[in-house]
């Protein structure tokens, strides 16, 4: 159990970052990260395998479960709501565009959001992301591209200039 805690402690920043990119809410992200840690402490980590994809898979699965439970709430998300001030404050205030962009990710489909998080943010290869999401590699390629186009076309060039 000590080894599991060591892995979780080491990977906590990655776990929180991935959870935040999925939920776009600091509190929800930490709740999700907490659930992942509880689950991993309960079930353990697989032997002789890189724990990172496994952790991200658990995180993704729990997030999908949460999303299904909150589907109704998600339907009521409007573009108006998330173009206001970002919900999660960057303490320095220096990266407000970046925070806004993360919040805009909420408008992507679940699959696109997870694919973009794993590849563009976590730096995983398409094959690894495909394994975590249980889809073909080609699907990751198209989801990532569509997500990028969606964010760019619908929400400007991230410098505040509408397209």
């Amino acid at each position: 159990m000590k080894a599991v805690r060591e892995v979780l402690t080491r990977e906590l920043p990655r776990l929180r970052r991935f959870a935040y990119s999925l939920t776009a809410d600091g509190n929800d992200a930490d709740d999700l990260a907490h659930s992942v840690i509880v689950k991993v402490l309960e079930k353990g980590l697989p032997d002789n395998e890189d724990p990172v994809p496994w952790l991200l898979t658990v995180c993704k699965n729990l997030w999908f479960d949460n999303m299904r439970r909150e589907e109704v709430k998600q339907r009521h998300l409007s573009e108006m709501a998330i173009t206001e001030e970002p919900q999660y404050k960057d303490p320095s205030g220096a990266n407000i565009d970046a925070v806004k962009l993360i919040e805009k990710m909420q408008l992507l489909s679940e699959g696109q959001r997870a694919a973009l998080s794993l590849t563009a943010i976590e730096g995983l290869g398409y094959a690894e992301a495909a394994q975590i999401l249980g889809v073909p590699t080609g699907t990751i390629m198209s989801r990532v591209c569509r997500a990028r186009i969606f964010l760019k076309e619908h929400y400007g060039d991230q410098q505040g200039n509408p397209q």
Partner: protein
Amino acid sequence: MKNDKEYVSAYLDGELDKQEQQELESRLEKEAGLRKILSEFTLQQNLLKIGADIINSSPVPDNIAALLQESTSPKQKALTLLKRILNIIDLKSPVVLTSVSAMLLGFLLLPQLLPQSSSLAPELHAFLDQPGAITRTTTIEGVYIEQRLAYRSQTGSLCKLYEVQDGENQSTNVACLHETQWKIAFQYESLLPPQDQELYAPANSSLVREVEEFIQADIDGSPLSTKQEQQLLHASQPK
């Protein structure tokens, strides 16, 4: 068949094969439109990385930090604290350990529940009536008293673990406040080892086990802070 944007997106992620990469790089040199797409995707990717990592600039929540530590439940926390405050020294020498353990086994007395509050001197009452949560000390007529822990019992009473040292005699006690009276709930008496040994009770002694078992069965939640202790003391004052 990939379109241009898919090529650029995959190029940014390092997912093109060598031939595709060379072809795209060749086109990028010539086509401003492709360069614009690459520039926008690159900027977007950098912002995404910065944005997602902002959560790590906020402190790790307490509930996560607690999970990542060995002890998690309030009772486990209480026991860890107890072990820390009772484990006064680290025994290194096996010879010393053996001799001291034998000595302690010979001298340690069985736990003894005393009759209620009649044995508590008024000075001790006054000491317990003051908040301090942990490591508050006093000396009453040459008898050294040290408060080690305050907690709320399963029955809702404020209880305090404290040690009394009178020469070679030492007792570890728990007193609980019933209305305005402190009553002994647990007491364990022992003899201190000779001073030249510079040793106190080892952490795995009967004393620690007995105290742990008692507190584990009696405590409700975590050990109290001084403020929480003060609130309970205040609530028990006669109106």
